[in-house]
């Protein structure tokens, strides 16, 4: 995992984040999103035809980018163990199948996932399957800051490599940007471990509740200025979840942020991405909008559960030349 430092960026935006008024002036000064244009561009990029060897590459890359997720009230340690095993060996019948990037669970199940994933280093790349935990009163984010921070520290202490936090949409929508900013900064500090290293922070906007693309752009900048390592579309609990145009707006934001500060921030669409076709559309968009630097599990992730099975089925189809069926993969 690439460690990034955010000191430079926070210095650069010190004026902007000095007060609620300056922050509002900055965020509202961002150019508006052309809704029709963004939707047309996303739809246009979705029509690219990706076949044969390019498709093989895309499928393997997409598998490596999956944050295999289970966020149900009915999750059990057994289910999390099964999911973690699947993340390590998505296709038990094929040792060449890459690992997923991470498993994403509730904080109380981090230790369970960690137990299974402890020795998951990939034999060829040495990459490890990370454990991501949703924290800060996921999915609504309706709790006091103290509770959110305790939730985060708890997950980090249990061994989480990545923390998926939700922003306070109520505060954001009522224009209390500084509160949201300070909350992200506080959670990022709570991600630090005693040894000085830090869990990666993904900031969830829940774009389905932000109403407009302008708000998505503002939230993206807000989270990036606050030092989030990833910006993530949704919790998966609200419809609509990740859509192509929303992800497009976020990819533009990380591209512009790198142009302004030199720092890269990752993007994670989550929820509603179920098919290989969808995943490939996202990858095309990442390449065209943000650039090929983002075509890496360190900088782009899919928050998904059913997507993995479809990727595996397509992968099997490409290798064997015949259509596969859900009977041959685990249900989750």
């Amino acid at each position, binding site marked *: 995992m690439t460690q990034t430092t955010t000191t430079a960026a926070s210095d650069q935006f010190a004026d902007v984040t000095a007060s609620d008024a300056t922050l509002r002036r900055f965020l509202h000064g961002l150019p508006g999103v052309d809704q029709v244009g963004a939707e047309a561009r996303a739809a246009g990029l979705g029509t690219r035809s990706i076949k044969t060897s390019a498709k093989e590459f895309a499928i393997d890359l997409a598998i490596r980018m999956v944050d295999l997720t289970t966020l149900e009230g009915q999750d059990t340690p057994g289910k999390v163990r099964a999911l973690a095993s699947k993340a390590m060996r998505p296709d038990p019948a094929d040792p060449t199948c890459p690992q997923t990037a991470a498993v994403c669970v509730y904080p109380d199940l981090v230790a369970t996932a960690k137990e299974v994933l402890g020795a998951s280093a990939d034999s060829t790349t040495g990459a490890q399957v990370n454990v991501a935990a949703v924290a800060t009163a996921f999915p609504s984010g309706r709790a006091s800051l103290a509770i959110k921070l305790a939730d985060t520290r708890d997950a980090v202490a249990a061994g989480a490599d990545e923390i998926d936090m939700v922003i306070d949409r109520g505060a954001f929508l009522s224009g209390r940007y500084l509160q949201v900013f300070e909350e992200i900064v506080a959670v990022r500090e709570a991600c630090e471990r005693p040894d000085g290293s830090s869990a990666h922070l993904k900031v969830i906007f829940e774009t389905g509740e932000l109403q407009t693309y302008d708000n998505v752009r503002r939230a993206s900048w807000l989270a990036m200025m606050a030092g989030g390592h990833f910006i993530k579309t949704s919790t998966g609990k609200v419809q609509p979840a990740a859509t192509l145009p929303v992800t497009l707006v976020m990819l533009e934001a990380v591209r512009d942020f790198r142009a302004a500060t030199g720092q890269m921030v990752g993007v994670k669409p989550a929820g509603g991405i179920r098919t290989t076709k969808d995943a490939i559309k996202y990858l095309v968009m990442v390449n065209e909008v943000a650039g090929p630097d983002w075509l890496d599990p360190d900088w782009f992730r899919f928050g998904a559960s059913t997507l993995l099975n479809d990727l595996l089925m397509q992968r099997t189809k490409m290798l064997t*030349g*015949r*259509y*596969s*069926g*859900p*009977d*041959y993969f685990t249900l989750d």
Partner: protein
Amino acid sequence: MARVDVRKTYKLYIGGAFPRSESGHSYEVTDSKGAFMANAALASRKDARDAVVAARKAFGGWAARTAYNRAQILYRIAEVMEDRRPQFVDAVYRCEGGSTARANKVVDEAIDRLVWYAGWADKIGQVTGSANPVAGPFFNLSTPEPTGVVAVLAPQASSLLGLVSVIAPAITTGNVVVVVSSHQRPLPAVTFAEVLATSDVPGGVVNVLTGDAATVGPWLAAHMDVNAIDLTGVAGDAELARNLEIAAADNLKRVRRAPAAETDWSTEPGLEPMTWLLETKTVWHPIGI
């Protein structure tokens, strides 16, 4: 001024909708005398793939319906066919040739066959199931269950009666079907699909692909999510039938072998067309308590 012709687009039937072929291809259909009749959609492997997905989605619900309800729906198909009888007579007459009297007789037989199968829906379980005697205080009951998604290569010559005779037994027993119609005579199959769409058959239970069994068949035979394949439509083509059987062996599909020549569909079919698509489940239950 002469009225402009309103020509019909003959499309596929997948998951309860009528899409064009994913490939965008179509082919010319001629009548029995070789004159142009229509352009039918030419199903591709991706249409077959979509049809299997639609069928798999429909399977749980269809298999879970009561046999009584399936009987009602099969009878309903017969009712709606009867209602559109002139259209079927015309299609059969033009596709298969012969006389209108013959076409009328074929349509009669097709409708009667559906009624015959409708009657069997809630009786087949009693005929093929059993209460087995065992050496212990148990009920031991064998009941038939549907096999799953069935790919059917429909007869080439008998475009309506043959088609009904291979679809009806599969859905009567709770299976779902992806059927490749007669290649040269697909129009009765398209009309039949329109009947299915309006007779309470849930979308995806029957999916009709018009096209060539030789191109679509291998994909269906090799498909890992298809549980059985009926090779009736490749009767007489031993080489193709053999290759399809080999492809079907990969996931141990049930295979109904291709006959040497096309069957005479006017005779009563017997139970075999239904029983080959049934899996037997046996349960033990303690007596008493």
